[in-house]
């Protein structure tokens, strides 16, 4: 069972959350974007084996989105924060 720290509610079990995938995806500006940018945004993923920044929604709690940095090989949760928190690239 993953134990995920919600910035508002504290440590909560994984079953209280809904997974929402890669947190690094940015929606392109529809006014200026190209087909390839949309392909990139909607379909393509880095899918790294190792450190992954991702979104979880605390659906059975405060319903806020939580940003989680997790190791995909060990499931170790390295840090959590609000969605607009900056997770430095070089930090774990």
């Amino acid at each position: 069972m993953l134990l995920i720290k919600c910035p508002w509610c504290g440590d909560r079990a994984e079953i209280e959350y809904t997974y929402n995938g890669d947190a690094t995806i940015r929606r392109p500006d529809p006014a200026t974007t190209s087909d390839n940018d949309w392909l990139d945004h909607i379909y393509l993923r880095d899918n790294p084996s190792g450190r992954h920044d991702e979104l979880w929604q605390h659906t059975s709690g405060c319903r806020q989105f939580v940003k989680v940095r997790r190791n995909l090989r060990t499931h170790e949760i390295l840090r959590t924060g609000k969605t607009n928190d900056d997770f430095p690239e070089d930090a774990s």
Partner: protein
Amino acid sequence: MRYSIFSLVRNALSYHQDWPKAWRSPDPKPEYDVIIIGGGGHGLATAYYLAKEHGIDNVAVLEKGWLGGGNTGRNTTIVRSNYELDGNALFYEKSLKLWEDLSQDLNYNVMFSQRGVLNLVHTDSAIDAAQRRGNAMRLNGIDAEWWTPEMIARQVPMLAIRNDGYFPVKGGLMQRRAGTARHDAVAWGYARGADSRGVDIIQNCEVTGIDMKNGHVIGVQTTRGAIRAKKIGLAVAGHSSRVAAMAGLRLPIESHVLQAMVSEPLKPCLDTVVTSGVAHLYISQSDKGELVFGGDLDFYNSYAQRGNFPRIEHVVASILYLFPTFSRLRLMRSWGGIMDMSMDGSPIIGLTPVNGLYVNGGWCYGGFKATPGSGWVFAHTIAENRPHRLNEPFTLDRFHKGYTIDERGAGPTPGAH
């Protein structure tokens, strides 16, 4: 050596001490015509059909661990072709037809058992959807039967046919030609068949880089040195994104963990495969007597080959709702495998933007049943440098062009398929 009753008797006389090895373990040559990365069922089947159907036998299969040690050895061994969309239906039906003759073709018993797959439905709208799918299958020449709850009660007496609670059984769609097979035997049979036709199977050889020149592959770097080839096929589902990244490609795939488990062995009690889309579970009984079952993904990206307890609890609870009589069984093992979850729930088999590099991945939950068909069309794709009619729909560029094959209608959310 051909396996037969005579070879069995002959070797019994020498106490089974003199059986020859089923395949060689050669050192890699400096150059091959084709390199297949990944020594699971799909990679080995591809090499087999390259040699058998296309006469290309200067082929190496590179495997980082041991043959069939990835998802080939981790699935629930179900084989079926009960798909609605034409692209899926025709491809998986080709695969099922290959399964039907596979033991004879390989001279290796893959223990394919056409015990039928029953998809239970639990709501009135699901009856409509299942019958529609059954009709679509029959239009494509695939067998499908609608079973009423009374027929199910007669055929699967262990199943609790109740009309209350979350999952009342309202009927089911049966494909009788579907069934199960012995997963290890599939890898070993294809390995033996490919090896006997001259393919080099190289285990403990991890690919660490893909060499390219002017947009064309020229070879790979491995833990056993550089190997050159002008054509390279990826058959590494679970890790497709990682290997494709070596050639600078990003794929429409996320890797997720899917768990499966077995109970202690029982006397024969369940002679068909029972699945439920709503409860999302599938259960069958192996020839050893264990009940083999699984359910949903854990629903988060993972490369860990193990999952967590909430999913096991969910799967077991669903099983016990439908089969209350299994409540006192003990679980013997559970394990996880890494799924290539593609963005439309369908596989990707075809050319890539890199010349000479071919991809076979994105198998989601369903790679095992596709093994023969996948190898067959992938061999054609590599040999002819263009897809076969059966895998034309599964191109990598379908996402760009908008021709996704979304059997479940779940949209570009990999975990939802």
